[in-house]
């Protein structure tokens, strides 16, 4: 067998395809330039080609492909949000997720586990009931469950009343899922490149100028280029890039940390979140517990890790799963989250014509990658804001209007 495999490997006839086509030189001008080669930028590029036949597009990425929050997130996908605008938007994303692996031809390991948001107080129970009602009204599979049902769904959770914050109930969302985040970026990138779209890594936008004629000039570390339309999708760097373009955003850049344990025997089916304890956890296909909590306490543009975070997180983990006391943390990391005051994104028009924004994704934007890419592509192609994202426009803040999702997104990303 190994010998046959070796012979197979040396045959010319079976030379494998390169996953990505070879990189091309940077041109002087493009119809569309997307700043930021994370999941969002790449999805937008992919749908520009597949839905609208627009392929004179360059994606500029200052690091390597999807090295930002797309590579750092904990991959939770759900639609049980609090506002109708939010819930409907994320529900459409889940519909796209279910057929995405087939469409992109890559195994996304999309795995529906069920998602439990534990409530430890009357206030949390009330929010859970509220979310369940909004969700059911919109046709989203979501319900409030009691302690008996939690014990059935996840017998490993410590339901003892001899703890600081006993579990009173939970919001249960059966379609809650996780996916392989890198594959999402690679799948969209390959699809886009096969339609002729260029992805330029190690290409950082350093300045932005609007010309009288309408075109937009982007300075980069590899020379300047001109774009008919620009889409900005740079997550934690949103304010800095918007500053180059000349406008301000309702965003604070704050680190969000996460960590994984050593691989353990599979024991945890659902994704478990506790807002009161500031912890969430799921078990990956490799057996690692993927764990995180709320953002760091103050704004910062550094992806350092802190002991404060792990210490606090583990105290909560051990309250929920005391039998993990000897498990070890394997890796810890951070990403810079672009946090908005209402825990909803900012998508659509900006004060600059033909300069569109996709930002404010904070700690919750991975799940929106497909739907956001599709909507931003539609906006770029037609110049009209799709209904699905109208509520998330930057202008809402000027009218003192918020799409308040704090109750559904502060810890359970």
């Amino acid at each position, binding site marked *: 067998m190994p010998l046959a495999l070796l012979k197979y490997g040396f045959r010319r006839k079976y030379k494998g395809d390169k996953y990505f086509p070879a990189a091309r030189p940077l041109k002087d001008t493009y119809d569309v330039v997307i700043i930021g080669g994370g999941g969002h930028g790449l999805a937008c590029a992919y749908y520009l080609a597949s839905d609208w036949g627009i392929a004179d597009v360059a994606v500029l990425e200052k690091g390597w492909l999807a090295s930002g929050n797309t590579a750092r997130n904990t991959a939770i996908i759900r639609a049980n949000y609090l506002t109708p605008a939010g819930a409907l938007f994320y529900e459409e994303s889940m519909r796209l997720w279910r057929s995405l692996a087939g469409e992109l031809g890559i195994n996304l390991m999309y795995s529906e586990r069920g998602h439990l948001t534990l409530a430890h107080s009357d206030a949390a129970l009330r929010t859970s009931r509220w979310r369940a009602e909004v969700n059911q009204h919109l046709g989203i599979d979501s319900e409030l469950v009691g302690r008996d049902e939690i014990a059935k769904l996840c017998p490993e959770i410590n339901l003892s009343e001899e703890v600081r914050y006993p579990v009173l109930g939970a919001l249960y969302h059966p379609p809650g899922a996780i996916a392989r985040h890198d594959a999402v970026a690679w799948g969209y990138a390959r699809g886009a490149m096969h339609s002729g779209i260029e992805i330029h890594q190690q290409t950082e936008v350093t300045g932005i100028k609007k010309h009288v004629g309408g075109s937009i000039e982007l300075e980069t570390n590899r020379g300047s280029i001109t774009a008919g339309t620009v889409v900005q999708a740079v997550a934690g*760097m949103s304010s800095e890039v918007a500053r180059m373009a000349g406008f301000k955003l309702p965003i604070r850049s704050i680190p969000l940390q996460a960590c994984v344990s050593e691989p353990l025997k599979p024991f945890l089916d659902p994704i478990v979140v506790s807002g009161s304890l500031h912890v969430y956890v799921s078990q990956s296909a490799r057996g690692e517990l993927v764990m995180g909590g709320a953002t760091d306490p103050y704004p910062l543009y550094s992806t350092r890790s802190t002991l404060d975070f792990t210490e606090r997180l583990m105290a909560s983990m051990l309250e929920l799963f005391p039998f993990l006391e000897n498990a070890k943390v394997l890796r810890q990391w951070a990403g810079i989250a672009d946090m908005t005051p209402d825990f909803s994104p900012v998508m659509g028009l900006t004060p600059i014509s033909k300069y569109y924004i996709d930002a404010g994704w904070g700690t919750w934007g991975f799940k929106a990658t497909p739907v956001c890419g599709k909507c931003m592509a539609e906006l770029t192609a037609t110049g009209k804001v799709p209904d699905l994202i109208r509520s998330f426009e930057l202008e809402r803040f000027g009218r003192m209007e918020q799409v308040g999702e704090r109750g559904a997104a502060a810890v359970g990303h």
Partner: protein
Amino acid sequence: MKIIDCPLNGPRNAQEFVCGGEVRQEPSQDAAIDKWADFVFLENNLQGVVHEWWCHVPTSYWFIVTRNTATEEIIATRRPDEFFAGLKQTDGAGSE
């Protein structure tokens, strides 16, 4: 940034403090709504040296921290009166 040198209480563990956001000029009470919306929601969110309000929670004491948001270094901590007096002399820095 594990220890913050509080002007009132001396060096204390960073966990005892909360960040209250950038030092900015509040609009006048009768300013237009867009001025107020800007003040309430929009952020400079600068990568670099910023002046911020911080509070030492156990003593409810508010003061000004100058820190670098790229390197996580604290450059100075000052009493508000000291900070704003300095501003008047150098004119400008930290306003907005």
